């Protein structure tokens, strides 16, 4: 008897409290953004939460890109993954191989009945995150590419043309002039492997690995130990030796030296723009990556960096509905446009790009269209569609280690590249074995 009464009371209370006091469904979003990009993430979540009451997106900063990805994997293994996790482009192959751990975006949208047309997105961006037959697996969030930033004041001080160099030979010559003109550090490439090997190969229409750089299968093999690459690394090592180039490390640590005015030129992510804009106390410009004019087809197009949002599996249908709504919100033209204009990351939809263009933004802000033009200027080839290599994080470290050996004068460029290729291939075979 008392149980029945209790049940009745509970049902009554439920009926009263139910819809009126329903807590919004919480959606965990793990990310790796810092500084002004962190503010952007928080604003996106807050704006979405203010727009409706059914769902609440909670962004959680989880450390660097690799740390965020590892945290999500560990959480998945422990049975409590976040709903959404931001994974950098080099983690894409690992996430794609983890069928059963992720819910593909195209399926998420279809299940939730959310309107979704992959044709609305920029193919240069989404191609990276889609299967061979065009099914989008993750939602591009902050997409960037490598470009060159140059300090106009430093050029003037060194008595140089107010025009940045276009080719590699010009870049090396400019670097020497900057150095002799009194610059403490002339040119510094950030993300050494990304800018000097990955982007370099795509930009010169050279293969980095077989099977369209891994996009067509996990049985891909590294092939970047070409004479062209060896020559480039040799020249680079010479420039580092005579101090007209600086070695800036494997990630973006050199960016601080550009913002402080210490280095006059830097090759790094287009996502660096927000930081320069906010913190640099000098006039700066942006330009395309340099190329070797004697290489046929160069410049081709550069490839994408940055990160995309992956949805983890094992969540409730109503939670997936919320994620689908959030992804629709992120794809909205006004939201994309604002994100693009503030951060320097690329717009992911065609409409957002067109709207930005139509508003005259690129005329008012010269250089801001460069990343898109550089990415989409030519239709991509097998060598420039993108990269999909298992354990690319580790492969990058291996390449960086061998390059560091060359820059320190300890090994020959050709031997170092051969060694990096051999070690990288061992990693690729290990990855293939592990995902069997």
């Amino acid at each position, binding site marked *: 008897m008392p149980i029945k009464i209790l049940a009745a009371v509970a049902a009554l209370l439920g009926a009263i409290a139910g819809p009126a006091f329903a807590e919004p469904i919480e959606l965990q979003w793990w990310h790796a953004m810092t500084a002004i990009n962190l503010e952007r993430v928080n604003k996106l979540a807050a704006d979405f939460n203010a727009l409706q009451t059914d769902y609440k997106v909670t962004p959680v900063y989880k450390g660097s890109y*690799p740390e965020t990805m*590892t945290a999500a994997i560990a959480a998945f293994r422990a049975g409590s993954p976040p709903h959404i996790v931001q994974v950098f482009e080099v983690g894409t192959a690992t996430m794609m191989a983890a069928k059963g*751990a992720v819910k593909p975006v195209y399926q998420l949208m279809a299940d939730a009945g959310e309107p979704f047309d992959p044709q609305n997105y920029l193919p240069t961006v989404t191609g990276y995150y889609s299967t061979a037959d065009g099914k989008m697996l993750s939602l591009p969030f902050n997409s960037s590419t490598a470009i060159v930033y140059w300090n106009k004041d430093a050029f003037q001080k060194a008595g140089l043309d107010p025009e940045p160099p276009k080719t590699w030979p010009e870049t090396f010559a400019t670097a020497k002039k900057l150095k002799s003109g009194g610059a403490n550090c002339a040119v510094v490439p950030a993300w050494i492997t990304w800018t000097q090997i990955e982007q370099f190969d795509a930009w010169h229409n050279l293969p980095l690995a077989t099977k369209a750089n891994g996009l067509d299968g996990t049985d891909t093999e590294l092939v970047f130990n070409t004479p062209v690459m060896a020559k480039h690394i040799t020249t680079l090592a010479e420039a580092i030796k005579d101090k007209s180039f600086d070695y800036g490390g494997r990630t973006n640590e050199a960016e601080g030296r550009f913002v402080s005015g210490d280095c006059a030129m830097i090759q790094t992510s287009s996502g660096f723009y927000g930081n320069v804009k906010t913190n640099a106390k000098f006039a700066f410009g942006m330009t395309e990556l340099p190329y070797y004019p004697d290489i046929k087809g160069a410049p081709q197009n550069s490839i994408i960096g940055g990160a995309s949002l992956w949805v983890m599996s094992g969540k409730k249908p109503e939670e997936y509905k919320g994620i689908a709504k959030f992804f629709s919100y992120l794809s909205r033209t006004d939201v994309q446009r604002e994100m693009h204009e503030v951060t320097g990351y690329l717009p992911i939809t065609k409409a957002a790009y067109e709207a930005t263009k139509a508003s005259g933004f690129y005329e008012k802000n010269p250089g801001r269209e460069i990343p898109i033009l550089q990415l989409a200027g030519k239709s991509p080839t097998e060598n420039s569609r993108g990269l999909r290599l298992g354990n690319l*994080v580790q492969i990058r*470290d291996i390449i960086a280690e061998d390059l*560091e050996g060359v820059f320190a004068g300890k090994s020959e460029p050709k031997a170092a590249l051969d060694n990096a290729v051999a070690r990288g291939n061992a990693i690729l075979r290990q990855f293939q074995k*592990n*995902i*069997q």
Partner: protein
Amino acid sequence: MERRVVFSGWLFPVLLLLPQLAVTVVFFFWPAAQAILQSVRREDAFGLSTRFVAAENFTAVLGDPLYLASAEITVLFSIAVAGLALASGLLFAVMADRVVRGAAVYKTVLLLPYAVAPAIAGVLWLFLFNPSIGIVAVALRRLGIDWNYLLDAPQAMLLVVLAATWKQISYNFLFFLAGLQSIPPSLLEASAIDGASPRRRFWTIVFPLLAPTSFFLLVVNIVYAFFDTFGIIHNVTQGGPAKATEILVYKVWYDGMVGLDLGSSAAQSVILMAIVIGLTAIQFRFIERRVHYA
């Protein structure tokens, strides 16, 4: 001589032991068992497919030239850190022991680095020596020294050895000071009356009597250099350049967390576990018996 407390039943002593046992099981035995289990398996990062591979991970690790290189680096690093930290700890202890005025101040200042977490210590050294932003790095370059440990392996090694040593000196200082203070003054006075110089008194009386402390500290320092220096390496060099400062414990982390090769990482930690067990056994066997002199 020995006084024993006798419990009337078994329930109460078991209850008293329970919290400690629970902590030990949850934080030591369970993870250790997990590591052993993982070390005989091969699986993808997400644990979606798992295969039993017996000792394959171990043979792969032990046959990997990179692993052996890392082991070599670890031995070098540990000897350098333990040697430097012990020598400077002893030096500071002997000096502080002689100080009459302001002794408490010296001792406090010398103990401070021990209160700093390894990760924080790493960041402190990074801010001083980073080629891009470090204050000392700028000064070194002004002096004409080409300071760039991002490329120069010996510089990187020197830097992490110094940072790790700096952090451990306090601990050694404390134990040496306690050791010094427990040396009977009558011995030193007697030899002083016999005309032994301070140097001679140190080498013939103080140093031998400190031997048990030194041996204990040697083991503790090696264990420290092997395992507790992860935070410093991670913050300062990330094992670079070209793996020149990648000690074994960093490699475990790197292969597991960055490389996502859990089988190999687990096999490496099982090997490390065996090393710790070995070191602990040595310590118990040789020190516990001789630690009480007189």
